[in-house]
C-alpha cells in the first residue's frame, strides 16, 4: 500500500474514533455498543499505521492477498453487527408491543369507576 493511501486510511480511522467518542459523550451511543465500535476503530488505526502487521497476519492465516483478509474480516464484523441489531430490534418490538397492551389495559381500568350511562364526560385519552 502506498504512503498516500495509508494516510487516507489513518484519517478514516481517526475520524471513526472521533465520531464514536463524540457520540458516546453526547449519550447517543450506549456502552454495550461502544466497546465493539471502539475495537473496530482501533483495529483500523493499527492496520493503517503498521501495514506490516496486516501482511504478516494474512500470511499466517493463509490469505494469498492481504486485502482479501481485510474484506473477509469486514464482512464477518458486519454480519455479526447485523445479527446483533436484528436481535435488539426484535426485543424492542416485543417490548413496545407489551407497553401498548399495558397502556390499553390501564386506560380501561381508569375508565371503569365512572359508569358510561350517567352522562359524565369521559376521561380524556
Amino acid at each position, binding site marked *: 500500500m502506498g504512503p498516500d493511501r495509508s494516510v487516507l486510511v489513518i484519517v478514516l480511522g481517526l475520524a471513526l474514533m472521533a465520531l464514536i*467518542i463524540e457520540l*458516546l*459523550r*453526547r*449519550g447517543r451511543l*450506549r*456502552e*454495550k455498543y*461502544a*466497546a465493539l465500535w471502539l475495537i473496530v476503530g482501533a483495529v483500523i488505526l493499527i492496520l493503517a499505521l503498521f501495514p506490516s502487521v496486516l501482511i504478516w497476519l494474512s500470511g499466517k492465516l493463509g490469505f494469498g492477498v492481504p486485502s482479501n483478509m481485510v474484506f473477509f474480516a469486514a464482512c464477518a464484523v458486519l454480519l455479526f453487527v447485523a445479527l446483533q441489531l436484528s436481535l435488539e430490534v426484535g426485543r424492542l418490538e*416485543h*417490548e413496545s408491543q*407489551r*407497553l401498548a*397492551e*399495558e397502556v390499553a389495559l390501564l386506560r380501561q381500568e381508569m375508565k371503569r369507576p365512572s359508569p358510561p350511562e350517567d352522562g359524565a364526560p369521559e376521561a380524556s385519552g
Partner: protein
Amino acid sequence: MPTQRASAPTRPLVVIPAFNEAESISTVLSELSLQPAPLPVLVIDDGSTDGTAAKARSDGVNVVSLPFNVGVGGAMRTGYVYAMRQGFDAVVQVDADGQHEPAAVSELIAGLADADVVVGSRFAGVGDYRVAGPRRWAMRLLAWSLSRLTGTRLTDVTSGFRATGPAALPLFARDYPEEYLGDTVESLVLAHRAGLRVAEVAVSMRPRMAGNPSQSPVRSALYLSRAMLVLMLALVRRRPAPPEPGWVP
C-alpha cells in the same frame, strides 16, 4: 450546581428492586417490618416470572410491577419517581436477596445528615463479608478510582445498599443510569459531577441466600474492563444541568 445543602430527611422510603426473588422477599420484608421504627416500603417487581409481586403484595406491601425486565437502574429510577410524586424526601435501596442487613437502614439514613448519597460499604471494617480472587482486585481498583474522583474514601462502589437524600432525589429520578453498572458506579459519578456529596457508611453484610457471582479470572478481567469503560464514559459524558429546585417528575 445545586445550592441546596444536604439535610437530614424526614420522610424516607425503602425501595426494593426485585427480579425473581420469591424465595427471599418475604424474609426481607418481615425483617424490615420488625425494625424499631419501620419505614414505608415499595417493592419494584422488575418483570419477575416467579410470583415475587404476589408474595410481596400478600405481605401487605406496595408493589409496582414493570411489564418486563428493565434492570436494577430502570427499576430504581421508577422507585425514585414514585418517591418524589408521593412526597418522600429520601430513598433507601435494599436488595431483595437478603444480603443487606435491615438494621443498617437507619445508619444509612443517619449518614444523609451530611451527605447526599450514602453507600453502605461491605469492606469498611464491619462484618466479615469477603470477596476473593481477581474480582476483589477489580473492585478495589474501581473503588480507588472513585475515591480519587470524589475526594471521599469509598471502599465498595458496587454496593447496592445505599441511601439517596433530598438533594440527589430529583437528579436520580430524572437521570438515573440504566446501563450495565450504571446504577452503582456511574450514578456515583453522576452525583459527584452534579455537585452532590457522596459518603460511605460501614455495614455488615450477609452472603446472598442463593447463588454466587462467578469469580473466574477471565470473567473478572472482563468485568474490570467493562467497569473501567463505564467509569471513563461517565467521566466524559456531557450532562444536562441538574433539575431545578422544586421539580417533580
